[in-house]
């Protein structure tokens, strides 16, 4: 009896404004653009999708469940630009049928460059999820489902996670099926949930593709595929970007209708049910060990790091960024540190990708730049300015405040 496990990734980066070598203020981010994108996605996706999911949860009386992973940077933007979205997530949290996962607050690749920063960001993220939704996450997913054996050990050593989510890539599974739970190599107190990419991508990518042999995909047809796994798997992990519902797949493709009928069709078969990742981890044993010595991800056909680090610009930019860690943190300036962290979003490097710099590609739809070169130039100009702020004498921090330059002086005068 396969348990269907839905998890939706919810994230927006904080985009940079056009920043030339002649600019030298610390306003790096394009508030106007970020606000418009946020509101647009809220209207096309977050609000209608949240309402639909909430409706389904209530209708099925606890039998329909899902999980979300929401980044800290998105929550900040929602608070500023679309607070009504936050209240719908709140309602979802209170339904008792929604699990929130853990990830890095800033959607960063810090795992690859700074373990300390990585752990700080996870903690910061768990804290904000707890504050907003009253849950302490127990299942972890790394940015873009990046994973290897070391990650498993690191997460396991934090002592507060039960499972890790990652991609069910062919080259780590071999002939094995992603519809079971696995154990990471050399650590035994976290379990691995592997994405069933075939079925997930059927919804996320192929849904509206008319030249796909299975188009149109109805809830009934899909439920049939799920049921066929009966006896051949414990769980079907359907992991995807939340923007599938309304952005990647527009409303007129019928995606919302599909979702609306899906729980009913799946539950028609009495052996099927829905579980959250945490429940999955508790319900099933692991069947085998999965060895992932080299990094995998859920991106592109390669399922590796090439989307963010494949060319010289990307690798040098990210290297320069993390090289600043010590200087940034020693300024003790909240804004400097926060700016540095916002620059860590993996999206900034994704925009610099020259891999598929050709027509009509999914990379380009969400790219605010005309070319990867423009994004690199922009990023480096901003980074340069950030670096110069680190070497200036600090006037942030505990004792000095920019607002009261004479406070210390007046104390001295009085004494």
């Amino acid at each position, binding site marked *: 009896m396969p348990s269907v496990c839905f998890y939706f990734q919810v994230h927006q980066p904080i985009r940079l404004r056009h920043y030339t*070598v002649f600019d030298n203020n610390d306003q790096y981010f394009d508030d106007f653009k970020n606000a418009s994108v946020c509101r647009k996605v809220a209207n096309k996706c977050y609000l209608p999708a949240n309402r639909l999911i909430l409706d389904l949860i209530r209708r099925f009386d606890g039998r329909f469940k899902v999980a979300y992973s929401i980044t800290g940077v998105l929550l900040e933007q929602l608070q500023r630009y679309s607070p009504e979205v936050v209240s719908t997530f709140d309602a979802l949290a209170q339904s008792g049928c929604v699990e929130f996962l853990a990830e890095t607050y800033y959607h960063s690749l810090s795992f690859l460059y700074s373990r300390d920063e990585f752990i700080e960001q996870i903690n910061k993220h768990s804290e904000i999820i707890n504050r907003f939704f009253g849950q302490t996450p127990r299942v972890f997913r790394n940015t873009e489902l990046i994973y290897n054996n070391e990650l498993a050990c690191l997460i396991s050593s934090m002592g507060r996670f039960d499972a890790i989510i990652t991609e069910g890539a062919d080259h780590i599974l071999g002939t094995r099926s992603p519809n079971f739970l696995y154990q990471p190599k050399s650590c035994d107190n976290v379990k691995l949930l592997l994405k069933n990419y075939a079925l997930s991508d059927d919804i996320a990518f192929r849904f509206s593709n008319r030249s796909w042999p299975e188009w149109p995909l109805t809830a009934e047809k899909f439920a049939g595929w799920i049921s066929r796994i009966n006896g051949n798997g414990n769980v079907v992990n359907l992991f995807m970007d939340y923007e599938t519902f309304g952005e990647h797949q527009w409303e007129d493709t019928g995606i919302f209708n599909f979702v609306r009928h899906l729980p009913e069709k799946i539950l028609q078969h009495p052996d099927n049910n829905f579980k959250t990742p945490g429940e999955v981890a508790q319900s099933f044993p692991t069947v085998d060990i999965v060895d992932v010595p080299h990094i995998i991800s859920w991106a592109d056909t390669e399922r590796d790091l090439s989307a963010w680090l494949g060319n010289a610009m990307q690798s040098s930019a990210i290297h320069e960024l993390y090289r600043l860690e010590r200087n940034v943190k020693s300024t003790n300036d909240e804004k400097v540190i926060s700016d540095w962290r916002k620059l860590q979003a993996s999206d900034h490097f994704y925009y610099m990708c020259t891999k598929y710099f050709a027509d009509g590609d999914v990379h380009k739809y969400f790219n605010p730049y005309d070319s990867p070169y423009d994004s690199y130039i922009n990023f480096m100009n901003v980074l340069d300015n950030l670096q110069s702020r680190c070497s200036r004498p600090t006037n942030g921090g505990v004792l000095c405040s920019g607002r009261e330059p004479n406070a210390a002086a007046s104390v001295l005068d009085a004494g």
Partner: protein
Amino acid sequence: MLGWEFPPFINGGLGTACYGLTKAMDEQGIHVTFVLPKVVYGQYATHVNLLSPHSRTTPTSLKIAELKNVEFRTIDSPLEAYATPESYQKRIEDTIRQKQIAQGSLSPASQLFTAPDYGNNMYNEVHRYAALAVDLAANEQFDIVHAHDWMTYPAGIAVAAVSGRPLIVHVHSTEFDRSGEHVNQMIYDIERQGMQRAAKVIAVSHFTRSIIISRYGISGDKVEVVYNGVERSGNGNGEWPIADTGIRSDEKIVLFLGRITMQKGPEYFLYAAKKVLEVMSNVKFVMAGSGDLMHRSVELAAELGIGHKVLFTGFLRGPDVQKIYSMADLYVMPSVSEPFGIAPLEALDNDVPVIISKQSGVSEVLMHALKVDFWDVNEIANKIVAVLKYPPLEMTLRNHGNFEVRKLRWKDSAQKCVRIYEETLVAV
């Protein structure tokens, strides 16, 4: 084919394009009869050595062994590429003056009337040329008449009409590119007539195609786009001794290579240079080329206070072009209105990253180039600094760009032209 210039005497893109296309067609076995204008100083050049930069030997005497299927025919005419009615006038007056010197006497008024071998103004000359072309064509066998740029259109129309063969006009540039909004009515009329009378119009880019459709009123289904290509050239042999050039070895070199004329945006190059020099000092700007705005550019550089950082090389030919590319760190083309732009492709072929104007045809085919609006001096400067400052950027642009350019071969342009020929002949 009615065209222009052949190597080594090439004044600009028009000659390069004709050469590239013809060579590629030759390689595909297409038999080309190439007609070009040739100035005859002949009897006027007796004991005076005319050191005209435009003098040329008979192309047929050049050893172009590589072009097996191409035959050259010349028509005596002072027409040359990029001429304007004013420059033509000046040319005629110079020739008359030379004639006077050669004949060693003050010419009476009677000797000033039009000599029989050129028109007294450009309009007449273009039509005289057409008449001579018809004569020449009477002795030739051909299926198609292919005319390059406006000066050959009347000849093309005439030859096509008399022979009954279809005409194809190839638009490498329009009056709007060359003269902005102050178009010369006569030239515009000739261009439009050529496009209307042709069976098919070939444009070198979508940018040019849309000008043809919107400014000349030609129907879209008659206009096809065939992109120019680039010749894979060898490496420059040796270099200029760098000490002689006034460039220090640690200095970066930003190159502008092309005719120094309004269309190419030389002033934007200089304004951007000034901005760059505000934040970087170890860079020199080189303007390679000549043109009607050359002197003005030298003055402008001085006015902007960057005269010591801008070098002018004058017109460069052949191996010198290679050398300058091998020295450059970056090539900038801030063209105001560029129908295509072969120079950036040559730059990439020589491993030099490029910044090109968005108002150009070549920006349609290049992905791995930095693109700017020609007027956005700030952004041009921003991008120049970025390329010079960040080696990974320069490296990625250079590698990907060089690879991309390998796909832009004259072979493909020629094949496309041949396909257009075939379609036209079927319809006839």
